[in-house]
C-alpha cells in the first residue's frame, strides 16, 4: 500500500479550475466561514463579559481600580491555578465522554504524598515529585483501565476512586495534615520546594505560570496531535473511531492517566503553596473543575469542546469569586449570585449557530 501521493494535487482532473500553488487558500471561504470563525471564540464571550463587569463594579481605592491592580490579577490566576490545572486534565476526560470525580481526592493524596515523602522519608524534591506524579498517573490509569476494559461508567469508577484515594490519603497521613518545614535538617523539606508559593519577579506567582504553561501546552496538543483527534473521535462517535482503527482503549486509559497526573501535579503545587499536605485537601475541587470545563463550552456528552474554553472557564470562575469578595458581598448572597452568573455564562455559549 503506497501512501497517498502528496503531489496528486497537480494531477487534478481536467475541467477543474487552473492549477495553483497553495490549494488550501483557494478553498471556498464564504460568510459562513467568517461566522464560524467568530463563534469559534465564543467560549471567551463569558470571560470577557465577566471581566468587563468586574472592572465596572470593582471598588476603587485612592483612584486605583482594585480589581485591575496587578497584584489582584496575579492573585486571581494563582487562586485558580490548581483548579485550572485539574480542569485541563478533566477536559480530555470529558472530551471522550467521561468524567473524573477523583481529581480532588487525588490532589489530597498527592499533597499528603509530597509532604510525607519529603518530611518523613527525607527525600529530595526530584524523587518526591516523580513518585507523586507516578502515583497520580497510576491511579488515573487504573481507573481508566477499569472504565475501558470492564466498561463501567466512569462516573461510578471515579466516585469509588474518590473514596479510595481519600481513604488512602488519610491512612498515609494518619488523618492529620503533614506540615512542611523547610531546611536541611531531618524532617525538613528542601528550601527549593517553597518556590511553589513564590512569584517570578515578585509579580507572577509560580503556580499561575505553571497553569498557563500547562494550559498552552494542552491547547497545542489538542490542536495539533493525532492523539487529540482520537480523543474527539471517541467522544463524538466511538463506533466510528473503533472502525477507523483508533486504539480506543489505549486512548481512554491515557486520558484518565493524564487527568490523574495533572491532579497529582496540582496536589504538589497545593502542598507547596500551603506548606502542608492534608488528606482533606481538594474536597469538591472536582465540581469546580468540571464547571470550568463546561462553562468553557465543552459538552459533557463528549466529542466537542476546546482547551481555550476551559482556560477561559477557569479564569471566569476565579474572577467571579474575586469580584464578589472584593465587593464584600455576603457569603450566602455570593452563592446565589454565583449560580446565576454561571448559568448566564453558559447561556452565552448558546448563541452559537448549531449544527443539526
Amino acid at each position, binding site marked *: 500500500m503506497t501512501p497517498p501521493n502528496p503531489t496528486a494535487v497537480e494531477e487534478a482532473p481536467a475541467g477543474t479550475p487552473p492549477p495553483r500553488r497553495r490549494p488550501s487558500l483557494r478553498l471556498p471561504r464564504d*460568510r459562513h466561514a467568517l461566522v464560524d470563525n467568530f463563534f469559534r471564540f465564543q467560549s471567551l464571550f463569558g470571560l470577557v463579559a465577566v471581566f468587563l463587569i468586574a472592572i465596572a463594579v470593582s471598588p476603587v481605592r485612592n483612584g486605583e481600580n482594585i480589581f485591575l491592580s496587578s497584584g489582584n490579577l496575579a492573585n486571581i490566576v494563582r487562586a485558580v491555578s490548581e483548579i485550572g490545572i485539574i480542569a485541563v486534565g478533566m477536559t480530555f476526560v470529558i472530551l471522550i465522554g467521561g468524567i473524573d470525580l477523583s481529581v480532588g481526592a487525588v490532589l489530597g493524596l498527592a499533597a499528603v504524598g509530597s509532604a510525607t515523602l519529603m518530611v518523613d522519608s527525607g527525600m529530595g524534591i526530584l524523587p518526591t515529585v516523580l513518585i507523586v506524579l507516578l502515583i497520580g498517573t497510576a491511579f488515573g490509569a487504573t481507573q481508566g483501565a477499569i472504565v475501558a476494559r470492564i466498561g463501567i461508567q466512569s462516573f461510578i469508577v471515579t466516585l469509588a476512586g474518590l473514596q479510595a484515594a481519600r481513604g488512602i490519603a488519610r491512612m498515609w497521613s494518619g488523618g492529620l495534615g503533614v506540615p512542611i518545614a523547610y531546611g536541611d535538617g531531618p524532617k525538613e523539606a528542601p528550601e527549593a520546594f517553597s518556590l511553589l508559593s513564590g512569584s517570578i519577579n515578585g509579580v507572577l506567582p509560580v503556580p499561575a505560570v505553571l497553569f498557563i504553561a500547562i494550559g498552552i501546552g494542552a491547547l497545542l496538543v489538542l490542536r495539533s*496531535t493525532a492523539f487529540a483527534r482520537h480523543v*474527539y*473521535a471517541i467522544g463524538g462517535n466511538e463506533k*466510528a473511531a473503533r472502525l477507523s482503527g*483508533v486504539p480506543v482503549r489505549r486512548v481512554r486509559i491515557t486520558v484518565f492517566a493524564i487527568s490523574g497526573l495533572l491532579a497529582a501535579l496540582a496536589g504538589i503545587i497545593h502542598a507547596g503553596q500551603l506548606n502542608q499536605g492534608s488528606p482533606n485537601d481538594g474536597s469538591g475541587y472536582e465540581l469546580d473543575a468540571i464547571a470550568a470545563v463546561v462553562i468553557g463550552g465543552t459538552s459533557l456528552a463528549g*466529542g466537542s469542546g476546546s482547551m481555550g474554553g476551559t482556560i477561559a472557564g477557569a479564569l471566569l470562575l476565579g474572577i467571579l469569586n474575586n469580584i464578589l469578595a472584593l465587593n464584600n458581598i455576603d457569603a450566602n448572597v455570593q452563592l446565589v449570585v454565583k449560580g446565576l452568573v454561571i448559568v448566564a455564562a453558559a447561556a452565552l455559549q448558546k448563541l452559537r*449557530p448549531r*449544527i443539526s
Partner: protein
Amino acid sequence: MTERPLVRMTGIGKRFGGVQACRDIDLTIAAGEVHALLGENGAGKSTLINILSGVITDYDGTIEVDGRPVSFGGPVDAQRAGIATIHQELDLVAGLSIAENMFLGREPRTRLGGVDIRRMRRQAAEHLRTLGADLDPRRLVGSLRVGEQQLVEIGRALSLDARVLIMDEPTAALADAEVERLFETIKELRRAGVGIVYISHRMAELEVIADRATVLRNGGLAGTVDPRTASRDEIIQLMVGRSVDALFGEGRNEPGKVLLDVRNLAVTPRRPTPGRTEPAGVDLTVRTGEIVGLAGLMGAGRTELLETLFGAGGSGRRSGQMTIDGRPYGPHGPRAALARGVAFVPEDRRGAGLMLEHSVAENVVLSALATLTTLGVVRRQAVRRTVAEQLTALAVKAASPAVAAATLSGGNQQKVVFAKQLLTQPRLLLLDEPTRGVDIGAKAEIYRLLHRLADAGMAILLASSELPELLSLCDRVVVLHRGRTVATLPRASATQQAILAAANGDDAKETR
C-alpha cells in the same frame, strides 16, 4: 479477470442469538472485478462483509487473502491486509472536520510528530474532487448533508488505496449525478486491478456496474448470476424465492380535493447554518389520494422543505401561505403537525428515526401512544396487538418485537420508522427517501402500501433521489432547485430527461 482470487471466504457462518445471519457461505473476490452482493433485507450481506472487514471477529469458516489464511483481530488488521470498507451506516465523527474524518486513525505526521494538517486537507480535497464533491475539507462533518457524508465515507475508503474495496449500499443516499461520478471512479479502480464488492438494492445500478453477482437468501447462498445477461425477474426470483409481480401499480384513482396547498413558501433562517437549503419560493399542492414526488439534486432543499412542512425545520421566519383543507397551517413543531394529521418519515433513520437501543415494539408505538393509553397508562395488550399487526403488515424481519432496533438489518429499520408514522393515521404523509436501503421485494410492498393508502384517501408527498421510483409511483413530480419550485410535471410529461433538466436549473436561467 485474473485466476487467483484476492480473497476467498469459505464456509462462513455467523449466529446472533437466535438468528442465523450467515450460513455456510462461500465468496471469492478477484482482482479487477465488481462483485455484486444481493439479497433481501436481513439476508446477511452486511454481516458477511462485517466479517471480511474485521468488524465481527467470531465466526465460523475461513478467510484467505492472497491464498494465505487470515484472522483479523479488528478493522485495522483488515485495512492492513488491503481491505477497505464503506459501511452501510454512516459512521463519521460529527465534531471533526471532513479531512480529520478521512484520515482518522492514520493521520499523516509532521516531522515534529504533530498532525500534518495541510497535507491531510489537500489529500482529502483531492479524493473528494475525484468523486465530484467540491467540499471544503475543513467543514465539520456534522454540518454536512447525508449525501455529502456518504461521499466523505467513500472518499475515506478510496484514500486507503486498498486492493479490495467493499461498498455496502454506497449510493443509498446519493442522487444520480453523484452516482454517475462514483461509477466512473469504480471503473477506474477496476482498471487498476482493485477487487470490489458492491451491495445495492437498486437493480438498475447492478446492470451497469457489476461483473458478477452473488445472491444471498435467509443467511445462505442462493446462487451466482451474471447480472448483464440474467433478467431482472430471474435475479429477483433468486433473492426472494418467488417472483415479484408488477412492481408499480397502474390505474390510479382520480385524486380528490386539495389537501395541502403551499404558496410561495420561504424560510429566512434566524442564524446562518452552512449546508442547509431552506425553502426559497416553493409552490405545490397535494390532493387527497394523490402521490406527489419531490425531485432535485442533492442539496436542492427537498429535505428542508419536508422538515418545514412538519414543523421540524431550522429556526427562522416563515413567509408565504400554507393551508391544509383550506385552513391555514403553520406548525410550531412536530406535535402540532401530527395533530393536524401530518406525519413524516425522516431520511436519517438512525439519527432521527429510531431509538436504536430500544426495542422494536417501543419504537413502533411511540408516536401513537396517545391512542394506546387509558388515563396515561399504556394498555399492554393493545400495544402488543398493534405492534404485531404493524410488523406483519410491513413484513418486518425481527427475531421478536422485544429486540433492540439496532439489531435489525438496515432495510428493516427503515420499515420500523415507517410503521411508527403510519400508526398515527395521518392524512398527509411526508416521506424523505422512504425506500433507502429497502430491498426490492419490500420496496414493492411499500409501493403497494402507498398506493393502498392513497386509494384510501391519504395524501402523500415523497422526496426521492431515485428517478424511476418517482416516475412510476407519483401522479405528479415537483422539481426543486436551490429551494425553489422550478417545475411541476404531471405524470404524462414527467420523464427522466425533463426532471433532470429542471433539477439542473435549466428553466431557471437566471440562477445559473
